[in-house]
């Protein structure tokens, strides 16, 4: 049974562990064996916690003793390598040994451990979260394709059945892009909803922690466990709620969705566009009203995120730049970190101003609809080593194309989720995105869960891993 249980949703695993029908120790052993057997080629983990089986044994003993176990007892979560962990090394994807990182558990990892979860290992990331390729991690659906990033290891590990769920972080799309590319669910909650202490920063005002899971209900479950006031994160707000899981059963009838005509409808490859049209047809058939809007400030969105992300990442790494340590970074990351000081303070503040404008425009739209829908990415995963893709006859850089529909919701801080929406003609996953009002994760979860219930995409397994 345990060989099949590695593919169960986290919620089903927890139910079976708590009633004694599934051994947490055996589940841990099964995941560790799969990592040992499959991750040599996939390269989704950079460190594995050999104590996972022991933690599972403790959970089994508690169950056998007839005691109540914690909410996430027996869960085996992969943590992106930028989440500090007291029992596993943290490198944020870098090989520069001079750089030191926190030794204590990050707030999010502490929240998961407090709820009974174990950290099965650290997942590979694009160095310092400054890219969306995550070399050398492969895409489980096609080994020669990238898994997306920067949380590519988390997306690949969940898709390949190597852990119950994983943590990612999203600054311009780094939870949702690998989730879409690997056929998993990725939730980027509202900015401030989840604490960030102990996560190696990339851009302080854009960084969002978030879970990558096999289905929407698991994302809701982890959202509830991760939420809580982080007293060392100036942006943290206490939003503890038990409503997230309940939202996943809500009907769509009588509700409304917005489609943004400009920006989000441009430059979409045909397979993704076709699938999105089918999603809209499904929503209409489900009793949802679809309305169309424009967000004029999106014309300046790329400028805003370039200015804020470049300046912020370079401020974080400034001493490393001055001391010459960035020479040890990967070439693409070194260039981005080294050039951030070219962004002037005035440009940076203009970027923060256009963010305000964008927040106002989205808020106006969300006065009349519950959520906004779009493809998560206008393209699917691309071959490793390829830097340009053909988007309807136009060559576009893969990095520019892949985050085009995700970064607006990092700028606005709105909650957004990616849910699997089928495969393209090459068999690569497509993601559907819902974004909602700040702190209304329940809305995006309910739409994503309703779509998921009516389709079987989340249950599909990549060939060669089942």
């Amino acid at each position, binding site marked *: 049974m345990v060989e099949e249980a590695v593919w169960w949703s986290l919620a089903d695993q927890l139910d079976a562990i708590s009633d004694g029908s599934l051994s947490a120790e055996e589940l841990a052993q099964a995941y560790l064996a799969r990592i040992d057997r499959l991750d040599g080629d996939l390269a989704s983990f950079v460190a594995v916690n050999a104590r996972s089986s022991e933690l599972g044994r403790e959970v089994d003993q508690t169950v056998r003793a007839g005691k109540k176990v914690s909410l996430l007892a027996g869960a085996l979560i992969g943590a992106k390598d930028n989440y500090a962990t007291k029992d596993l090394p943290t490198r944020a994807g870098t090989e520069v040994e001079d750089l030191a990182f926190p030794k204590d558990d990050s707030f999010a990892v502490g929240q998961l451990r407090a709820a009974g979860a174990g950290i099965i290992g650290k997942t590979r990331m694009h160095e310092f979260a400054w890219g969306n390729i995550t070399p050398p991690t492969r895409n489980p659906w096609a080994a020669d394709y990238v898994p997306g990033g920067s949380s590519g290891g988390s997306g690949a590990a969940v898709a390949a059945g190597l852990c119950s769920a994983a943590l990612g972080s999203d600054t311009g799309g780094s939870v949702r892009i690998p989730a879409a590319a690997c056929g998993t669910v990725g939730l980027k909650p509202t900015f401030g909803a989840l604490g960030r202490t102990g996560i190696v920063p990339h851009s302080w005002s854009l960084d969002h922690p978030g879970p990558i899971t096999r289905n929407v209900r698991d994302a809701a479950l982890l959202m509830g466990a991760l939420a809580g006031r982080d*007293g060392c994160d*100036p942006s943290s707000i206490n939003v503890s709620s038990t409503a997230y899981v309940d939202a996943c059963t809500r009907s769509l009838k009588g509700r409304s969705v917005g489609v943004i005509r400009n920006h989000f409808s441009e430059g979409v490859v045909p397979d993704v566009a076709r699938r999105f049209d089918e999603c809209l047809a499904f929503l209409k058939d489900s009793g949802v009203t679809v309305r169309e809007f424009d967000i004029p400030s999106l014309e300046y969105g*790329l400028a805003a995120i*370039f200015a804020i992300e470049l300046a912020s990442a370079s401020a974080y790494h400034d001493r490393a730049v001055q001391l010459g340590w960035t020479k040890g970074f990967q070439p693409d990351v070194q260039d981005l970190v*080294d050039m951030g*000081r070219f962004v002037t303070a005035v440009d940076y503040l203009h970027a923060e101003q256009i963010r305000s404008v964008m927040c106002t425009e989205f808020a106006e739209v969300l006065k009349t609809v519950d959520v906004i829908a779009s493809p998560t990415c206008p393209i699917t995963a691309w071959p490793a080593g390829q830097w340009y893709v053909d988007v309807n006859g136009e060559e576009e850089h893969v990095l520019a194309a892949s985050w085009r529909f995700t970064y607006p919701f990092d700028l606005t801080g709105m909650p957004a989720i990616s849910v699997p929406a089928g495969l393209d003609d090459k068999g690569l996953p497509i993601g559907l995105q819902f974004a909602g009002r700040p702190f209304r994760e329940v809305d995006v979860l309910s739409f994503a869960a309703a779509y998921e219930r009516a389709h079987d995409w989340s249950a599909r397994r990549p060939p060669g891993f089942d």
Partner: protein
Amino acid sequence: MDNLRRVTGLPFDDDRMEELLEKYGPMLAEIEKLRTLELKHVFPAVRFDPETAANAGTAVEEEE
């Protein structure tokens, strides 16, 4: 290039500065769009909480 090094605080030689300026070009072309806007009535999206900030500023280390 000396003046640019001083203004930016970047410690690189001329070749590296030229290389970075060239690679920054496409991003600058986007950022320049912001300079065309009249934004003086828009409050920037910065948020400051003095109480929590008091817990977040513990890592100022002097160089040896």
